[in-house]
């Protein structure tokens, strides 16, 4: 198996992470925000896996498993919150919910 330089993998991960970040910052629709977060988590996982491959250790992959578990939990809670929000406010606009204003 020919090898990919680790730097490249990390750059790809960073690029995808950056896209996720842009998504979080730009989108007002909460569903898109959640999706962008998934993207970012995924990018982080990619970096872990790359690191695991670099050192030939299973730890990197274990970390991805944990991220996966966390993502699942987060999405479950997040999406129910979206449901509730939609029910209460009738919208999925993140900017409409500013009750935390100081």
């Amino acid at each position, binding site marked *: 198996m020919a090898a990919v330089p680790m730097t490249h993998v990390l750059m790809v991960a960073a690029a995808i992470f950056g896209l996720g*970040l842009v998504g979080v910052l730009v989108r007002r629709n909460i569903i898109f925000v959640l999706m962008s977060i998934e993207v970012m988590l995924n990018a982080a996982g990619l970096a872990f896996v790359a690191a695991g491959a670099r050192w030939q250790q299973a730890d990197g992959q274990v970390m991805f498993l944990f991220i996966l578990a966390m993502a699942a939990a987060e999405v479950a809670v997040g999406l129910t919150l979206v449901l509730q929000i939609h029910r209460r406010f009738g919208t999925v606009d993140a900017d409409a919910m500013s009750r935390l204003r*100081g």
Partner: protein
Amino acid sequence: MLGLLWLVPAVPFAGALVLILAGARLRRTGVAVVGAGSVGVSAIIAALIAIRFVTLPPAEGFFTQRLWTWIRVGGFAPEIALRLDALSLVMVLVVTGVGFLIHLYSTAFMEGDDGYSRFFAYMNLFVGMMLVLLLADDLLLLYLGWEGVGLCSYLLIGFWYRDPVNANAGRKAFIVTRVGDTAMAVGLFLLVTRLGTLDIQGLMQRAVDQWAIGSPLAVAVAALLLAGAVGKSAQLPLQTWLPDAMAGPTPVSALIHAATMVTAGVYLIARTHVLFTLAPSVQLAVAIIGAATLLLAGCSALTQHDIKRVLAYSTISQIGYMFLALGVGAWSAAIFHFMTHAFFKALLFLAAGVVIARMDDEHDMFKMGGLRHDLPVAFWTFLAGAASLAALPLVTAGFYSKDLILVETWSSVLGGPWLWIAGLVGAFLTSIYAFRMVFLTFFGTLQKPPTGRSGWRLHVPLIILAILAVVGGFVELPATLGDRPYFSDFLHAALPAVVNDAARAGAIARLQIVAGLVSIAGIYVAWALFLRHRSLLARLTRPRPARQLHHFWAAGWGFDWLYNVVLVQPFLWFVDVDRRDAIDRVYDGIAWSARAGWRALSATETGRVRTYATGLTLGAIVITAIVIFL
């Protein structure tokens, strides 16, 4: 017998304590007995001690009674000790004797007052404090008495506290004298630091040993003590409180503001005369202050309408004579004048008190007149006092004491013609204003008949004091009139004699004749202006400059105005401006900036998740940048 010395101040203190604690429960007679009785007992003890002292004088010429050590710290150990010598004995006798007479007078005079027991409590406290002042062997203890009498003066001036005028007068008196007292305290600090003690005898000894004549430290100490004396004795420039102090009851004016407390400054200088001898420039200042004060106060006395204010200015003026005597080194002449002044001035006040009371609290002499038939006792005693004040030759005590001062001012090496002329002009003024009072009050047409009657308790003190005011001077007969200087001889154990300039010592008889003529001339002028030719007076005071001068003198040469503008108003202005404490504004500023910071930061809390996320991103960027570039 001498061992009972401590009882002299202790008995009045005990009287005061009883009256303070139980005064409300005692009946009026009880209060009178305790109040006047305690001073009477004190006077009797003082008299017995005096007899013992004169007949069997102690070996060193003085007697010291140590009670206890006040405090002992770091080499400084003031004692609570009493010292009896010729000087303090004379003062004690006058204070207790005249004090008792005034107390007796007060028992009748204050009869109808609500604060009867309070009055006597203060009066007894005053007598006790005054005796402590006189008997103190230590300057610190003297200072205790010094402040104590000031306190009582304040309490008694403001005795009728409901009227703010009285309370303000008391406050003014205390504060003005306290200015002098504070200077005196600084003098004490200097003495403690440089000489290590405040024991008067030790102090004098060490001062002579360590300081040369005219050395800066001696001058500084003498000047600071002089400041204290000037404040207490109402001399220039701290004389402004005394005329206002007349707001107090008349016996108070007689006792405190004429006979005793105001002469404490004279006593202090006489007591520490060694220091003043070491500082000739300050001693000259004493003489000049005395001369200036007696002239200024004499002019002011001429223009007053309120009989008590005339007497107040007169007191300032007479104490000026005492200062003049001290300044030229005629120590015992000053004390002699203190004694005769105590007699005739207390008398004048008490007699004036009778007049004022019988005239329904009328103070204005121009609204009195012709009272000599209705108030014979008051008239004759007042006349005796006024004659003594005017130094009517040969027959009055005032003549002998004032004459002694004038003669010694002329002949002393420290005196001279200029000071003598000032004294002579003062004497002329004195006899004018003294008889101005007599003529305005008792002669002329009856303007308003007196009411009520006065009992023996008012008259007996008047008569005794009148006798003393006449015969009190015979204890010191000058060389030209029998040469019996008993009083000076007695005091020479404690105070040195005056040093005469041989060139000027021979003219005593001529000087006395001049002084006598001046006194009589003054009486004649008073008769002419205020009784015989009132129109002349009116013509004299009609021109504008004369009127203005009259106002200026009546207002005490504008000192009150000056102090108000220079000291009081700036202080009040500062206090008013800084009432809310400018320093606190600094901390308010800190609190304000914290609040502003809170506002600014809380504005960033928009509640929008995306804004927060942007913040997070920015933070990540900055931190990463820091990692990269550092």
